[in-house]
């Protein structure tokens, strides 16, 4: 059961981490869909 709980916790950690990392690198959702990279 611990492995299952760890797996679920990892999903949350990875999701929040990915969101923050992509945001920091300038690849947040808003950057990707409506930011300069798409407009230029």
């Amino acid at each position: 059961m611990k492995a299952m709980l760890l797996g679920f916790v990892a999903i949350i950690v990875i999701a929040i981490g990915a969101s923050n990392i992509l945001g920091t690198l300038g690849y947040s959702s808003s950057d990707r869909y409506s930011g300069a990279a798409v407009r230029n």
Partner: protein
Amino acid sequence: MLRMALALVLMLTLAPAGFAQEDTPAVDRSATGGAQTLEDILARQAGQKLDDSFRSDAVGDPGNAANIAAQLGTLGGVSDAETWRALRYGSANVKVSAGGDVATVLVQDGGMRWLEFRDTTLRTYGGWLLVGTLVALLAFYLLHGRIMIDDGRAGRTVTRFKAIERFGHWLLAGSFILLGVTGLLVLFGRVFLVPLFGKDANAFLLEWSKWVHNNVSWAFILGLVMIFVMWVVHNIPNRTDLHWLKKGGGILFGHDHPPAKKFNAGQKMIFWSVVLFGGSIALTGVALLFPFDLPLFAKTFHLLNATGLPHMVGLGELPVQLAPQEEMQLAQAWHAILAFVLMAIVLAHIYIGSVGMEGAYDAMGTGEVDEAWAEQHHSIWLEEYKAAEQEPKDSGAPTPAE
């Protein structure tokens, strides 16, 4: 090869109207001066294949332009109608100051076909596939009941999956469920949730669904890589699988449980479905996450055309010049089609791994399964496990996976 095969299925699924139409004889357009005729319109409405070149090629000729000093000379040999036609068929020489190739596409009528597909075909067939799967599983349960351990539990357990294997499995499973639910909310929210809870509640839910879907995807990809690395060796098909399939796994017909290694043929089918469909879903998902940066389909169609397969199945030449928007539309459609198929497969997997079979859940719950269960469903694996366990410890500790 896989991507080509997948793309072929996609084309068969997506474009029956476009490619499977009947040929229509040449139309005399002299009466309309080359413009489309009533026959053209009727043929299109009847779903017949129409050679559009009389329109797509009629985009004017600057060489025929009147002298600049003559009457209407500034038109440059191209009428408004011809300009709009060129825009529609993607042959206009559009220059933009921002937005790159994407912004040069001013008219993309394929977008309407995609929208219609998403709002009708995808929702209808995808939704019924899931409902049908649930009904089939319920019927199976009512007809066969729970698959029990024939001689009862032995009371002794063996380690079936190590903690890292279970972690990888639950990472993949948990993320897939979240992705599936949020994906369904995005697709069906407007249809089912708005009438029940209103637009504001639906918008709030979809905003979060989008965040979850976009960011949980990375956990899914990691889980997919983990289970592939850990289990691919055990999922290579062998002769045992043929015997297992002939016997229907001892589940579909009779109660004679055929021998199996660590994974039986049914589990191998689940594994390869998850790896191949999940891999393709992940690939198209990344293409959707980073719009226009990862065009997949024009290249895939080019490879498919080279094999001659599209011609063999009557699709003709697949389009290799796709607008950036078309690439995104195809990626979304393929992503959703495969997701529905994989959800249906995973529903069956969840059923057999929980309520459908006594003792099965323990494998992924605690990692320890009852010896009688292992003997019944994975007898070859159990023998190998015991043999490895009896080996002297100095020759290497047995691993649960062997």
